[in-house]
């Protein structure tokens, strides 16, 4: 009887304290999101603080997969398998050109780089606008046929957390080829 009670107690405590990692999984990719991450509904995504300038500019389909970890927002696209979106230098040029406005407006925070991660490559982009930091990533397989793109938005005070989250995500990406 005593043993049963102890087992029951431990199970209950375990249930409350041990939050499982969240696995983001599609037919093309599997990646692990840290403990405490939860999936956002469309309404929750719409309610996120962000740029609220006009309805027209805020109207978009948004990203297909949206998660939140504390103050950090994580957005993931579906894996791109087309040639255009698997051209990382081209994507870099597009993003570099699209963010020229920052430097023109005196914001020098923009940085972009294509890095090797093991056998794979990743385009990493970072910048800050107002009090929000942005990480954009395009993680590509060795064959340059699969790219997982996504972004992290974070309060600039939580940059370390965001950087750790970015690394955790990138290191966990497994393409299903």
């Amino acid at each position, binding site marked *: 009887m005593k043993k049963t009670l102890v087992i029951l107690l431990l199970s209950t405590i375990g249930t409350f304290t041990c939050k499982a990692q969240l696995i983001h999984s599609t037919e093309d990719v599997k990646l692990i999101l840290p403990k405490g991450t939860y999936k956002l509904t469309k309404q929750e995504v719409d309610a996120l603080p962000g740029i609220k300038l006009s309805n027209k500019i805020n109207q978009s389909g948004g990203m297909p997969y949206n998660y939140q970890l504390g103050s950090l927002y994580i957005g993931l696209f579906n894996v791109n398998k087309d040639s255009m979106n698997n051209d990382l230098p081209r994507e870099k040029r597009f993003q570099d050109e699209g963010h020229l406005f*920052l430097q023109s407006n005196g914001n020098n925070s923009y940085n972009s780089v294509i890095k090797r991660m093991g056998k794979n490559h990743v385009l990493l982009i970072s910048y800050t606008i107002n009090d929000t930091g942005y990480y954009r990533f395009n993680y590509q397989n060795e064959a340059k046929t699969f790219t997982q793109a996504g972004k992290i938005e974070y309060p600039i005070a939580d940059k370390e957390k965001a950087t750790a989250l970015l690394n955790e995500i990138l290191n966990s990406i497994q393409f299903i080829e």
Partner: protein
Amino acid sequence: MMKFNFKKSILKIPFFLILLFSIIIYSCRKGNKEPARLPAPLNDAKSWYESVYPANSGNSLQNQAAGKSRDLSQWIKPDWQHPVMYNRYGQSVIEMPVDPEAKFGSSYQLNKKRCNPAYSRSYYLLMTDGKKREAYILTIIADSAYINNDLSKLDHNTYRKHDPDFSGTILYFTPRGSYLGGYGYRNGQLMASGTEDTDTNKTPRVQNVNTGRLIANTVKQVCTDWYVVYYVDGVYQCDEYLTTTCVNVDDGNPSGSGGNTPPPPPPCPPGMHVGPPVTPPCIPLAVESVEGGNRLKTNYVPPPPPPGDGGMPPPTAQVCSVDPPRQPCPSAPDPCELLKKAKQKFATAFNTQRNADVLAKPGTNEYGSNLNLTSLSANTYMNTPITTNGTNSWMPNFTWNSTNGFSIGSVHRHQSAGPSPNDVFSLIDHLSNPDLVTSGASSIKFYRDNAYATIVSNTTTYTVTVSNWAILSQMFLDYNQDRNGYEEAFQNKATEYKNKMNLDEASATNKALMEIFSGAINLYKSPSNSTNYVITDIDKNGKLTITTCPDK
């Protein structure tokens, strides 16, 4: 003790009699020649009335032209000796019967049926809010069922009060006889206003379910011609057509609330309405039918709310007016004509060469050039330099003078993307340039009519013009709240389209741009080094559209 002297007293009697008789005579004469002095408010009202509605001899009722409303002020006047004064609706009201001297009577005639003038009473109402005076004639016509052979019941109904079971009609006129509108009562309750209805369609519409089978009944209209009829001493003098009202009937039963007297007519003749003219919406060129078949127009107007104090609804100084006829909607400007006109400025030989020169600059930095007219009357450009800001965005250097030229346009290079919000808003940003501002309205109009921004890439030339400056101005306010945030939102949108829809950079940015700016700008594009422009827009489903004009 005092002694009574009969002889002396007898002599004094004739004197007293003469004095008494004289007083009586004098009093009577005074009463005949001068009416009793009126209280000040009444006296003011009388002075006002007689100045506004002076009685002119020779303009009697019978002498007035037929076909126009009779000028009642030439026939009747208020009975100033029997006023009732009170306040209602924030106005001082003087209510008076019609002076009995005229032996006036009025009632109405419905089609050919005249109502008994004995069931009618008319009152003058003079109202003032302390600033402005108005005069009305209120005619109360009771139903015979309500009177029920007791004419004294007519006295129970005035502007201030009515019997709880009053049934009849009240009509308001101006002192000159213009009909202002009326109300119907049934058992003390206001009825819905009568409505003019000229639709004569007879359409099966109502289903009779009493027999267990659905049988289409015929709904038709029964119309009533309204006349006001005037009497002197109970003898008919003349009548005057007011209007026609119609009600729908189902198998001979009025669809309204039933009863002997239809609701009173609207104040305005057919084709007119109360209030100032209203410009009707234009007739669209193509009308999508949402309902089939003939429909019977009912024009139901709900009854007005009861005044709540037991009196009659107030008159209103209504002005009848005719609306201007509906006109076909002006057709939207032909986009191809707009393109053709705009190309006269942005697709000259100079533009083509300058676009090519900008595109040919080495490296990946943005290069650009202002496109400055030599004068507002010429279509020639100054040979402005091609410049760069290095790794930053190229920024135009707007000028508006005869020395440096008039910057109606600019061209700069992009690597792969189409125009951005910054490129669009630069067009409106220039409107605050001091040289342009001080050059006057005609110069500013010239700029608005001709401004453009051209963006060249390796494959495509884009030109943006403004189609609606008002909309763009509103968007410019948003943009200026947070320019970086606005551009980031645009780039984010384009990135999403590129990733989700596998659109190339040009299409993704074009789609994002037109989703934001459609209706405010025109976006034209052509292959590089060509002037074969097409019109790019976005449809209601969010899809990019291309319009090719015959004369490209």
